[in-house]
Each structure stands twice: as C-alpha cells, then as structure tokens.
C-alpha cells in the first residue's frame, strides 16, 4: 500500500502534465464551486447548462475555421448570455424558454459545424468530454487568469450579488444598478464555463458548478459559509477524483463529477435542514 502511494506521489512529482492537471483541478474546483453558489441560489442552473452547450458551438466553429476554440467558445457563451438576458429582462420571454431555444439552436450549430469538417477532429471530443491531463501551460495560465478575475469580481461585488440573487426587485427598488449586476453575473458564469471546458468538458462542466454548491446548501444557512463549504467540496472532489481516475485509469471528468454527486447525496442525507423538516412534520 505504502509503495503504491509512493508511486502515486512520485508520478505526480515527476510528470509535468500531472502537476498541471493537479493545479487545474484546484483552480477549476474553487472557481466553479464559488460561482456555482450564485447559480444555485438564483435558480440559474438551466441557463448555465445552456451556456455550456452554446460554448460547444464555438469550440466546433473554432476547429472548423482553425481559430482558437476557447476564443469562439467565449464569444458564443457571451452571445447566449446577452440574448437570454435581453429577452428575459425585457419580459419578452420567460428565462427557461429563451434558454431552451438557444440551447437547442447552438447544439444544432455544433452538429452542423462537425458535419462540415473535412476530416475527423479528435480535439472536438476532448472538449465534449474533457481531458484534464491534456491541460497545457498556456491553458493553465488562462485558467489561472480567468479564475483570479472572476473571484476578484465576486469579492468586490459580493454584497450586490447577494442582494440580486436574493431579491432582484428589491435590489432595484433600493437603487442598485441591477441590470449591470445581472449581466455581470451571467458573464462571470460564461467565463467560468468556458475556462473549465478543456478540463471537464461541455457535458460535465455544469455538474462541477452546481453539485458542490447544492451539497453545501444542504449543510449551512448563510451565504458566506455556503461559499466556503462549496469551495472545499469542489476542490476536494476535483483533487480526489483526479487521483482516483489516475489510479483506476478511467476518465477524470466523469470520476470527479461522480464523486461530487456521491458527496451531494451524503450531504442531502445528513442535512440538518432535512432533519428539521422531519421534526417539523
């Protein structure tokens, strides 16, 4: 057993790709689980899933045109954010309808772009399912830069984001710039999704955002502790999931998300909120 652990530590210290994967897991674990708290309390889960799929259309177009896929993924995500924000804010469409339309449309675009490719592009499927072990130094710098930016904005606008996710109408009535804050939150979600694509993939990225926050929600009654617990679960789950996937030689993104889902169910079972509900009954 000791030798197995030593071998594992030795691998992680010896191979640069393993070190980059570990650092990416920590950064993405923190980033997704912090922004995920605002997604969960605001009820934005579906919009986040929509952003992830919109970004995939950008990735496929990037491969088709030979342009940086991350750049176009960000562009498509922002387009989705502004379309959904505009339609919802004007009261033209309900949020789930506008997301549903764009969700399906961008997936259709992605399939069209794949169909137009002259040759098989394995990289596209890397973005679909994620491969944290293939994170390059440039990817890591991008992940670190975006993480610092998103977390700094969350820190600076913490009380305003808290107010608009709790009661947007009251925040507006009190004089806060709600439209700016609403779009800012959507942009932060979009940036988080895009920067996590390569590591965990389009399909799993949103689990990494929602699941740690949903697990933390079961355990605490205030927003700040929820963020801290969510970050701990997200980071721990990402690290342990990565190590387990290496040991068992299985896909890392799927292992991380499965582990986080297991943690969520443990938190749900152990939740003081559920115990209180049972007592109330």
């Amino acid at each position, binding site marked *: 057993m000791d030798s197995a652990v030593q071998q594992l530590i030795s691998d992680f210290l010896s191979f640069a790709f393993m070190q980059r994967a570990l650092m990416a897991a920590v950064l993405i674990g923190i980033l997704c689980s912090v922004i995920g708290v605002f997604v969960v*309390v605001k009820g934005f889960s579906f919009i986040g899933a929509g952003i992830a799929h919109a970004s995939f259309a950008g990735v496929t177009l990037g491969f088709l045109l030979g342009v940086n896929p991350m750049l176009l993924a960000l562009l498509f995500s922002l387009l989705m954010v502004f379309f959904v924000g505009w339609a919802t804010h004007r009261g033209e469409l309900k949020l789930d309808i506008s997301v549903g339309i764009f969700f399906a449309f961008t997936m259709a675009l992605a399939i069209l772009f794949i169909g137009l490719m002259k040759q098989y592009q394995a990289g596209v499927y890397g973005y679909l399912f994620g491969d944290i072990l293939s994170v390059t130094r440039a990817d890591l710098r991008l992940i670190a830069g975006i993480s610092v930016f998103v977390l700094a904005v969350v820190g*600076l*606008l913490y*009380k*305003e984001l*808290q*107010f608009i*996710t*709790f*009661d947007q*109408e*009251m*925040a*507006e*009535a*009190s*004089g*806060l*710039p709600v439209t700016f804050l609403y779009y800012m939150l959507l942009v932060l979600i979009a940036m988080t999704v895009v920067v996590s694509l390569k590591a965990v993939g389009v399909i799993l990225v949103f689990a990494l955002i929602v699941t740690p926050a949903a697990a933390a*929600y079961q355990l*605490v*009654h*205030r*927003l700040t502790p*929820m963020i801290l617990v969510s970050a701990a679960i997200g980071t721990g789950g990402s690290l342990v999931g990565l190590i387990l996937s290496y040991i068992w030689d299985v896909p890392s993104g799927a292992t991380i998300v499965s582990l986080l889902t297991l943690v969520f169910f443990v938190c749900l079972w152990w939740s003081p*909120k559920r115990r*209180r509900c049972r007592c109330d009954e």
Partner: protein
Amino acid sequence: MKGSGRSGRETERPTLRPPREKEGTERIVFENVTLGYVEKPVLRDIELEIFRGEAIGIIGPNGCGKSTLLKSLVGLINPLRGRITIFGQPVMSARKRIGYVPQRETLDISYPATVFDMVIMGRYARIGLFRRPKEADRRRTIQAIADVGLTEQMHTPIAHLSGGQRQRVLIARALSADPDILLLDEPTAAVDVRAQREIVALLRSLHEERNLTILLVTHDVNLIYPMVDRILYMADGRVFIGSPGEMLTREKLERIYNANVIVTEAEGRICVIVGDVHHG
C-alpha cells in the same frame, strides 16, 4: 354598535397626533400621471399630493393598481405619462429616501440568509458599489431589528421564522435604510390576528415617533383606520383621496370586497363588517 349601512361620514376620529404640516415643499406629487402598460393603462390622470408625515391607507378592488402605484414610487414602473416628484426630486434620485416593503409572498425563504443578513441588505445601496458594510451599518441594522422586536431572532435563518416575523423582517430591512417614506404592500395579509395587530402597532409608533410618511396598501380597513390620516381609493383606473369618513362608504367598500358591507361605528371609530359575497 349602532345602525347599519351608514357611510360613517359624521363619525369623529380620535386625534392621534398634531395635524401634519401641509405648507412645506416636502411632498410627494403626481402630476397628470398615467401608470400601467402601453396597451393597458392601469391608472389614468392621477393628480395627487401627499404631505410629509402623512399616513395614507390605499384601498381598492383586486387588480386596480394599488401595487403599481407603490412600484412607481421606487422606480420599478415608469409612468406612461406625467411626472412624479418626491420631496422635490425625481423618483430615481429620491428612492434612497424610501423604504419599500413588498408583499410577503415575494420573500424567498429558501435563501441561505439570517435575519441580520437580510436586514443589512437594506443598507447596501447607501454603502455603494465595491464597499463593505462598516460598523455604523451593522449598528443601524441591529437597531432596525430591535425596532421590530426581533433581537432574539437576529441570527435565525429566515426559513425558520413565522409569517408575522417574516413580515417584520421585511419592515426592518426597509427601516435599516433610514427612510423618510415607508411604502408597504399588504403588510398584514396572510398573518394571524395577533401578528396583524403587532404590525399595525409597530407602524403606528414608527409613524408617530419618527414622522415617517407612510403609504400602506391593505384590504383590512378596520385594522389600519386608527393610524391613517387619509385614504386613497382606487377603482376603474381612477384615484380618489379623502378622509376616512369620506372614503369608507358602503358603496366603495362593497366594490372592494364584492360583498354586502355594513359601515357602522363602535367605540368612537368606523367599523366595517363584510357580509355575504355577491354572486354573478
């Protein structure tokens, strides 16, 4: 009780406080205001002056525009026509002087927040973007919580509060911003009788001690009658304002409740008894 079906015009209201100053410039003014939606105006041609320190009860049938009127004062709804000024300022500049208490159903009790967390949000617009609450903000928050009698529940999650306590938290959040004007949208709806009386007593003391201007939407005229100076009655897109004696007539109240109504007098005050509901 004496008589039935009387308008109560001749009933004398007990004097609760000195008459309000009606000569000052500090007043809420609606000048030829139309509110609602482009296709469907809800309230038309409102001409209204409300003086600083007045308490106004707002009554009217469901859907007549009571909440719309309140929302127009905090900039949530812009007038389709006309101009609203609050103490000489446009709405957007004046809204930091207003404490708005929305209907309790709008409160998301599943949100991870304690009473303190929620009440301090009332100060966020005053604190400003990118700034953290200071000790003075925390002290003011604690005071607002004490004002509504929830000091013991200060660190209780909002999900664990009763209906009446939640209503008081909403009032505390409005008070924490040190408002000059308090707007309340059905603050006594769907709470038990004891909580209703506690809320009205609280509002009455706030009004009298701090000279707060209060606009209060309600369906329960008996409850708010002792604390209001004037009553604003809305129907068919029009707004009428007058003394409680003028406004609390059987005809108007029967339209509000869609039921037979008796307006009578008990212990020197108007008393409204709602009878059988109208059918058809």
